[in-house]
Protein backbone atom coordinates (compact mmCIF):
# COMPACT_ATOMS: atom_id res chain seq x y z
CA UNK A 1 0.00 0.00 0.00
CA UNK A 2 1.35 3.44 -0.95
CA UNK A 3 1.80 6.40 1.40
CA UNK A 4 -0.96 8.29 -0.41
CA UNK A 5 -3.55 5.58 -0.02
CA UNK A 6 -7.06 6.83 -0.64
CA UNK A 7 -9.36 7.68 2.24
CA UNK A 8 -12.40 5.43 2.11
CA UNK A 9 -14.90 8.16 2.88
CA UNK A 10 -13.46 10.43 0.19
CA UNK A 11 -13.77 7.53 -2.23
CA UNK A 12 -17.43 7.01 -1.36
CA UNK A 13 -18.03 10.76 -1.71
CA UNK A 14 -16.46 10.76 -5.18
CA UNK A 15 -18.45 7.73 -6.32
CA UNK A 16 -21.84 8.70 -4.94
CA UNK A 17 -21.71 12.42 -5.79
CA UNK A 18 -23.26 11.57 -9.15
CA UNK A 19 -25.35 8.58 -8.05
CA UNK A 20 -28.62 10.05 -9.32
CA UNK A 21 -31.39 7.54 -8.62
CA UNK A 22 -28.99 4.64 -8.13
CA UNK A 23 -29.95 1.96 -5.64
CA UNK A 24 -27.16 1.20 -3.17
CA UNK A 25 -26.56 -1.91 -1.08
CA UNK A 26 -23.84 -1.66 1.57
CA UNK A 27 -21.86 -4.48 3.17
CA UNK A 28 -21.84 -4.66 6.95
CA UNK A 29 -19.32 -2.66 8.92
CA UNK A 30 -17.34 0.26 7.62
CA UNK A 31 -18.99 0.33 4.18
CA UNK A 32 -22.36 0.85 5.82
CA UNK A 33 -20.97 3.66 7.99
CA UNK A 34 -19.29 5.28 4.96
CA UNK A 35 -22.39 5.35 2.78
CA UNK A 36 -24.66 6.48 5.62
CA UNK A 37 -22.20 9.27 6.51
CA UNK A 38 -21.76 10.51 2.94
CA UNK A 39 -24.95 9.78 1.02
CA UNK A 40 -27.86 8.86 3.29
CA UNK A 41 -30.89 7.95 1.22
CA UNK A 42 -34.04 5.88 1.38
CA UNK A 43 -32.63 4.22 -1.74
CA UNK A 44 -29.82 2.68 0.36
CA UNK A 45 -30.08 -0.74 1.93
CA UNK A 46 -27.68 -0.98 4.86
CA UNK A 47 -26.57 -4.46 5.88
CA UNK A 48 -25.79 -4.87 9.59
CA UNK A 49 -25.15 -8.61 9.37
CA UNK A 50 -25.50 -11.61 7.05
CA UNK A 51 -21.85 -11.13 6.13
CA UNK A 52 -21.20 -12.12 2.53
CA UNK A 53 -24.67 -11.23 1.25
CA UNK A 54 -24.12 -7.76 -0.23
CA UNK A 55 -23.08 -8.69 -3.78
CA UNK A 56 -25.75 -11.34 -4.25
CA UNK A 57 -28.39 -8.94 -2.88
CA UNK A 58 -27.23 -6.65 -5.65
CA UNK A 59 -27.85 -9.45 -8.15
CA UNK A 60 -31.43 -9.99 -6.98
CA UNK A 61 -32.12 -6.26 -6.93
CA UNK A 62 -30.52 -5.54 -10.32
CA UNK A 63 -32.53 -8.40 -11.80
CA UNK A 64 -35.78 -7.06 -10.37
CA UNK A 65 -35.05 -3.45 -11.37
CA UNK A 66 -33.36 -3.70 -14.77
CA UNK A 67 -33.86 -0.01 -15.52
CA UNK A 68 -32.13 1.17 -12.33
CA UNK A 69 -28.42 1.33 -11.61
CA UNK A 70 -27.58 -0.87 -8.63
CA UNK A 71 -24.32 -0.18 -6.77
CA UNK A 72 -23.00 -2.55 -4.12
CA UNK A 73 -20.43 -0.95 -1.83
CA UNK A 74 -18.69 -3.37 0.47
CA UNK A 75 -15.37 -4.26 2.05
CA UNK A 76 -12.76 -6.87 1.27
CA UNK A 77 -13.71 -9.09 4.23
CA UNK A 78 -17.40 -9.00 3.36
CA UNK A 79 -16.69 -9.75 -0.31
CA UNK A 80 -14.38 -12.60 0.63
CA UNK A 81 -17.10 -14.24 2.74
CA UNK A 82 -19.46 -14.15 -0.24
CA UNK A 83 -16.76 -14.87 -2.80
CA UNK A 84 -18.79 -17.64 -4.42
CA UNK A 85 -21.47 -15.11 -5.26
CA UNK A 86 -19.09 -13.69 -7.88
CA UNK A 87 -19.43 -17.02 -9.71
CA UNK A 88 -23.22 -16.74 -9.45
CA UNK A 89 -23.11 -13.14 -10.69
CA UNK A 90 -20.70 -14.16 -13.45
CA UNK A 91 -23.34 -16.49 -14.85
CA UNK A 92 -26.05 -13.83 -14.96
CA UNK A 93 -24.02 -10.61 -15.45
CA UNK A 94 -26.80 -8.03 -15.11
CA UNK A 95 -25.67 -4.93 -17.03
CA UNK A 96 -27.01 -2.55 -14.37
CA UNK A 97 -24.94 -3.94 -11.47
CA UNK A 98 -21.74 -2.34 -10.16
CA UNK A 99 -19.82 -3.84 -7.27
CA UNK A 100 -17.30 -1.62 -5.49
CA UNK A 101 -14.99 -3.15 -2.89
CA UNK A 102 -13.34 -0.70 -0.53
CA UNK A 103 -10.25 -2.82 0.04
CA UNK A 104 -8.31 -1.80 3.13
CA UNK A 105 -6.78 -5.29 3.32
CA UNK A 106 -7.97 -5.66 6.90
CA UNK A 107 -10.94 -6.67 9.04
CA UNK A 108 -11.62 -3.17 10.31
CA UNK A 109 -14.41 -3.83 12.82
CA UNK A 110 -12.65 -6.55 14.74
CA UNK A 111 -9.19 -5.21 15.50
CA UNK A 112 -7.67 -4.58 12.06
CA UNK A 113 -6.46 -8.10 11.48
CA UNK A 114 -4.96 -8.56 8.02
CA UNK A 115 -7.34 -10.00 5.46
CA UNK A 116 -6.42 -12.24 2.54
CA UNK A 117 -5.99 -9.23 0.25
CA UNK A 118 -3.01 -8.21 2.42
CA UNK A 119 -1.38 -11.33 1.05
CA UNK A 120 -1.81 -12.76 -2.46
CA UNK A 121 -5.57 -12.65 -2.97
CA UNK A 122 -6.70 -10.34 -5.76
CA UNK A 123 -10.43 -9.67 -5.82
CA UNK A 124 -10.23 -8.19 -9.32
CA UNK A 125 -8.54 -11.35 -10.59
CA UNK A 126 -11.29 -13.42 -8.98
CA UNK A 127 -13.99 -11.25 -10.59
CA UNK A 128 -12.28 -11.58 -13.99
CA UNK A 129 -11.91 -15.31 -13.57
CA UNK A 130 -15.67 -15.55 -13.06
CA UNK A 131 -16.36 -13.95 -16.43
CA UNK A 132 -16.97 -10.38 -15.27
CA UNK A 133 -15.33 -8.25 -17.95
CA UNK A 134 -15.53 -4.64 -16.80
CA UNK A 135 -13.07 -4.98 -13.93
CA UNK A 136 -10.90 -2.22 -12.50
CA UNK A 137 -8.24 -1.94 -9.82
CA UNK A 138 -8.10 1.62 -8.47
CA UNK A 139 -5.12 2.80 -6.45
CA UNK A 140 -5.16 6.58 -6.81
CA UNK A 141 -7.47 9.53 -7.31
CA UNK A 142 -7.00 9.76 -11.08
CA UNK A 143 -7.92 6.12 -11.55
CA UNK A 144 -10.94 6.64 -9.32
CA UNK A 145 -12.19 9.64 -11.31
CA UNK A 146 -11.85 7.62 -14.50
CA UNK A 147 -13.96 4.74 -13.26
CA UNK A 148 -16.75 6.62 -11.48
CA UNK A 149 -18.88 7.14 -14.62
CA UNK A 150 -18.79 3.40 -15.27
CA UNK A 151 -19.91 2.66 -11.71
CA UNK A 152 -22.82 5.07 -11.94
CA UNK A 153 -23.90 4.04 -15.45
CA UNK A 154 -22.64 0.54 -16.05
CA UNK A 155 -23.13 -1.03 -19.47
CA UNK A 156 -22.20 -4.48 -18.23
CA UNK A 157 -21.59 -5.88 -14.77
CA UNK A 158 -18.81 -3.72 -13.36
CA UNK A 159 -16.44 -4.77 -10.58
CA UNK A 160 -14.08 -2.26 -8.98
CA UNK A 161 -11.59 -2.77 -6.18
CA UNK A 162 -10.48 0.51 -4.64
CA UNK A 163 -7.43 0.21 -2.44
CA UNK A 164 -8.03 2.42 0.59
CA UNK A 165 -6.08 3.27 3.72
CA UNK A 166 -6.69 1.08 6.76
CA UNK A 167 -7.57 4.09 8.88
CA UNK A 168 -10.83 4.31 10.80
CA UNK A 169 -12.84 7.41 9.85
CA UNK A 170 -15.25 6.86 12.73
CA UNK A 171 -18.68 5.38 12.91
CA UNK A 172 -21.88 6.78 11.42
CA UNK A 173 -24.66 4.44 12.32
CA UNK A 174 -27.95 4.15 10.44
CA UNK A 175 -30.92 2.58 12.19
CA UNK A 176 -30.46 -1.08 13.05
CA UNK A 177 -34.16 -1.71 12.43
CA UNK A 178 -34.09 -3.96 9.38
CA UNK A 179 -37.82 -3.69 8.76
CA UNK A 180 -37.53 0.10 8.70
CA UNK A 181 -34.58 -0.04 6.27
CA UNK A 182 -36.50 -2.44 4.02
CA UNK A 183 -39.78 -0.54 4.14
CA UNK A 184 -38.12 2.83 3.43
CA UNK A 185 -36.30 1.33 0.47
CA UNK A 186 -39.39 -0.31 -1.01
CA UNK A 187 -41.50 2.81 -0.49
CA UNK A 188 -38.87 4.88 -2.31
CA UNK A 189 -38.47 2.44 -5.17
CA UNK A 190 -41.87 0.80 -5.50
CA UNK A 191 -44.21 3.26 -3.80
CA UNK A 192 -45.41 0.56 -1.41
CA UNK A 193 -43.95 -1.55 1.37
Amino acid at each position, binding site marked *: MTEQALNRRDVVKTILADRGDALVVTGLGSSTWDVFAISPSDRNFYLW*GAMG*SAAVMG*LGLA*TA*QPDSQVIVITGDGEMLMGIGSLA*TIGVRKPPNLSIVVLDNEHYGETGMQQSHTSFDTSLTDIASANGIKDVHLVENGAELEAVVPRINASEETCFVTVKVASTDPGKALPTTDGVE*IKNRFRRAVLGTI
Partner: protein
Amino acid sequence: MAAGLTATDMSVRPWQQDMFDAIKELDIKQVGYVPDAGHSAVIRMCHADTDLKVAVMSNEAEGMGLAAGAWLGGDRSVILMQSSGVGNCANALTLIENCRFPLLMIITMRGEWAEFNPWQFPMSRATPGLLELMGTRIFRVDREEDAADTVRGAGRFAFDGNLSAAVLLSQKMIGSKDWNK
Protein backbone atom coordinates in the same frame (compact mmCIF):
# COMPACT_ATOMS: atom_id res chain seq x y z
CA MET B 1 -42.92 -45.58 -3.26
CA ALA B 2 -41.35 -43.70 -6.14
CA ALA B 3 -38.91 -45.29 -8.56
CA GLY B 4 -35.21 -44.66 -8.05
CA LEU B 5 -33.88 -41.27 -9.11
CA THR B 6 -31.07 -41.04 -11.58
CA ALA B 7 -29.04 -38.02 -12.59
CA THR B 8 -30.05 -38.41 -16.22
CA ASP B 9 -33.80 -38.82 -15.67
CA MET B 10 -35.47 -36.29 -17.98
CA SER B 11 -39.06 -37.17 -17.05
CA VAL B 12 -41.43 -34.79 -15.30
CA ARG B 13 -43.62 -36.34 -12.65
CA PRO B 14 -47.14 -34.99 -12.14
CA TRP B 15 -46.31 -33.53 -8.70
CA GLN B 16 -43.33 -31.71 -10.18
CA GLN B 17 -45.47 -30.17 -12.91
CA ASP B 18 -48.10 -29.21 -10.32
CA MET B 19 -45.45 -27.66 -8.09
CA PHE B 20 -44.04 -25.65 -10.99
CA ASP B 21 -47.58 -24.48 -11.80
CA ALA B 22 -47.97 -23.39 -8.16
CA ILE B 23 -44.72 -21.42 -8.40
CA LYS B 24 -46.09 -19.61 -11.43
CA GLU B 25 -49.48 -19.00 -9.74
CA LEU B 26 -47.63 -17.32 -6.88
CA ASP B 27 -46.32 -14.77 -9.40
CA ILE B 28 -42.73 -15.68 -8.65
CA LYS B 29 -40.24 -13.93 -10.94
CA GLN B 30 -36.83 -15.09 -9.68
CA VAL B 31 -35.52 -18.55 -8.89
CA GLY B 32 -32.25 -19.38 -7.15
CA TYR B 33 -31.08 -22.94 -6.79
CA VAL B 34 -28.33 -25.28 -5.80
CA PRO B 35 -29.42 -28.41 -7.62
CA ASP B 36 -30.71 -31.74 -6.41
CA ALA B 37 -31.87 -34.64 -8.54
CA GLY B 38 -35.33 -34.27 -6.99
CA HIS B 39 -35.49 -30.66 -8.19
CA SER B 40 -34.07 -31.29 -11.65
CA ALA B 41 -37.42 -31.37 -13.49
CA VAL B 42 -38.58 -28.12 -11.87
CA ILE B 43 -35.18 -26.51 -12.55
CA ARG B 44 -35.47 -27.46 -16.25
CA MET B 45 -38.99 -25.99 -16.41
CA CYS B 46 -37.79 -22.80 -14.72
CA HIS B 47 -34.94 -22.36 -17.21
CA ALA B 48 -37.36 -22.95 -20.09
CA ASP B 49 -39.76 -20.24 -18.84
CA THR B 50 -38.63 -16.91 -20.27
CA ASP B 51 -40.58 -14.96 -17.62
CA LEU B 52 -38.46 -16.45 -14.85
CA LYS B 53 -34.99 -15.13 -14.07
CA VAL B 54 -33.03 -18.11 -12.81
CA ALA B 55 -29.72 -18.13 -10.95
CA VAL B 56 -27.63 -21.22 -10.28
CA MET B 57 -25.99 -20.45 -6.94
CA SER B 58 -22.59 -21.59 -5.69
CA ASN B 59 -23.83 -21.90 -2.11
CA GLU B 60 -27.31 -22.07 -0.60
CA ALA B 61 -26.68 -19.04 1.62
CA GLU B 62 -26.72 -16.91 -1.50
CA GLY B 63 -30.43 -17.66 -1.71
CA MET B 64 -31.22 -15.43 1.27
CA GLY B 65 -29.39 -12.48 -0.27
CA LEU B 66 -30.90 -13.14 -3.68
CA ALA B 67 -34.43 -13.34 -2.26
CA ALA B 68 -33.93 -10.17 -0.20
CA GLY B 69 -32.56 -8.23 -3.16
CA ALA B 70 -35.34 -9.47 -5.41
CA TRP B 71 -37.98 -8.39 -2.87
CA LEU B 72 -36.39 -4.94 -2.48
CA GLY B 73 -36.88 -4.56 -6.23
CA GLY B 74 -40.45 -5.87 -6.22
CA ASP B 75 -39.87 -9.48 -7.32
CA ARG B 76 -41.08 -12.58 -5.55
CA SER B 77 -38.61 -15.45 -5.59
CA VAL B 78 -38.26 -19.10 -4.68
CA ILE B 79 -35.09 -20.83 -3.52
CA LEU B 80 -34.51 -24.51 -4.29
CA MET B 81 -31.97 -26.64 -2.44
CA GLN B 82 -31.42 -30.03 -0.81
CA SER B 83 -31.32 -30.60 2.93
CA SER B 84 -27.53 -30.80 3.01
CA GLY B 85 -27.44 -27.13 2.01
CA VAL B 86 -29.62 -25.92 4.86
CA GLY B 87 -26.59 -25.90 7.14
CA ASN B 88 -24.99 -23.29 4.90
CA CYS B 89 -27.90 -20.90 5.42
CA ALA B 90 -27.94 -20.27 9.16
CA ASN B 91 -26.30 -16.86 9.40
CA ALA B 92 -27.82 -15.61 6.14
CA LEU B 93 -31.27 -16.32 7.59
CA THR B 94 -30.70 -13.48 10.05
CA LEU B 95 -31.15 -11.12 7.08
CA ILE B 96 -34.59 -12.61 6.48
CA GLU B 97 -35.70 -12.46 10.12
CA ASN B 98 -34.31 -9.04 11.01
CA CYS B 99 -35.88 -7.35 8.00
CA ARG B 100 -38.92 -9.63 7.73
CA PHE B 101 -38.19 -10.42 4.13
CA PRO B 102 -40.57 -13.00 2.70
CA LEU B 103 -38.65 -16.18 1.88
CA LEU B 104 -40.00 -19.30 0.16
CA MET B 105 -37.65 -22.28 0.07
CA ILE B 106 -38.37 -25.71 -1.39
CA ILE B 107 -36.02 -28.29 0.06
CA THR B 108 -35.61 -31.88 -1.05
CA MET B 109 -34.80 -34.16 1.86
CA ARG B 110 -31.77 -36.40 1.61
CA GLY B 111 -30.60 -38.84 4.20
CA GLU B 112 -33.96 -39.72 5.73
CA TRP B 113 -35.10 -42.77 3.79
CA ALA B 114 -33.24 -45.46 1.82
CA GLU B 115 -30.21 -43.19 1.66
CA PHE B 116 -27.03 -44.86 0.49
CA ASN B 117 -24.73 -42.02 1.57
CA PRO B 118 -24.48 -41.73 5.36
CA TRP B 119 -22.81 -38.32 5.05
CA GLN B 120 -26.32 -37.01 4.34
CA PHE B 121 -27.69 -38.23 7.69
CA PRO B 122 -26.60 -35.42 10.04
CA MET B 123 -28.03 -32.56 7.97
CA SER B 124 -31.18 -34.57 7.34
CA ARG B 125 -31.67 -34.86 11.11
CA ALA B 126 -30.81 -31.21 11.69
CA THR B 127 -32.73 -29.60 8.84
CA PRO B 128 -36.15 -29.02 10.46
CA GLY B 129 -34.69 -27.95 13.79
CA LEU B 130 -32.10 -25.64 12.29
CA LEU B 131 -34.67 -23.93 10.12
CA GLU B 132 -37.05 -23.50 13.05
CA LEU B 133 -34.27 -22.19 15.29
CA MET B 134 -33.52 -19.57 12.65
CA GLY B 135 -37.14 -18.48 12.41
CA THR B 136 -38.42 -20.45 9.42
CA ARG B 137 -41.77 -22.23 9.42
CA ILE B 138 -41.70 -25.83 8.16
CA PHE B 139 -44.27 -27.23 5.74
CA ARG B 140 -43.56 -30.92 5.17
CA VAL B 141 -44.82 -32.89 2.17
CA ASP B 142 -45.03 -36.68 2.30
CA ARG B 143 -47.59 -37.32 -0.44
CA GLU B 144 -47.31 -36.31 -4.09
CA GLU B 145 -50.86 -34.96 -4.18
CA ASP B 146 -50.01 -32.46 -1.42
CA ALA B 147 -46.91 -30.94 -3.03
CA ALA B 148 -48.44 -28.14 -5.09
CA ASP B 149 -50.99 -27.10 -2.46
CA THR B 150 -48.31 -27.00 0.19
CA VAL B 151 -46.16 -24.74 -1.99
CA ARG B 152 -49.19 -22.48 -2.54
CA GLY B 153 -49.88 -22.34 1.20
CA ALA B 154 -46.27 -21.77 2.15
CA GLY B 155 -46.04 -19.07 -0.50
CA ARG B 156 -49.08 -17.29 0.92
CA PHE B 157 -47.54 -17.56 4.40
CA ALA B 158 -44.29 -16.05 3.15
CA PHE B 159 -45.49 -13.34 0.80
CA ASP B 160 -48.64 -12.27 2.65
CA GLY B 161 -46.99 -12.48 6.05
CA ASN B 162 -43.46 -11.27 5.31
CA LEU B 163 -42.21 -14.48 6.87
CA SER B 164 -39.84 -17.33 6.10
CA ALA B 165 -41.24 -20.65 4.88
CA ALA B 166 -39.59 -23.91 3.92
CA VAL B 167 -41.38 -26.72 2.11
CA LEU B 168 -39.62 -30.01 2.89
CA LEU B 169 -40.17 -32.70 0.26
CA SER B 170 -39.80 -36.17 1.77
CA GLN B 171 -37.17 -38.42 0.30
CA LYS B 172 -39.62 -41.31 0.21
CA MET B 173 -41.95 -39.28 -1.99
CA ILE B 174 -39.17 -38.10 -4.30
CA GLY B 175 -37.48 -41.49 -4.53
CA SER B 176 -34.04 -42.29 -3.26
CA LYS B 177 -31.04 -41.79 -5.50
CA ASP B 178 -30.25 -44.86 -7.58
CA TRP B 179 -26.50 -45.45 -7.27
CA ASN B 180 -26.54 -48.31 -9.80
CA LYS B 181 -27.16 -46.05 -12.81
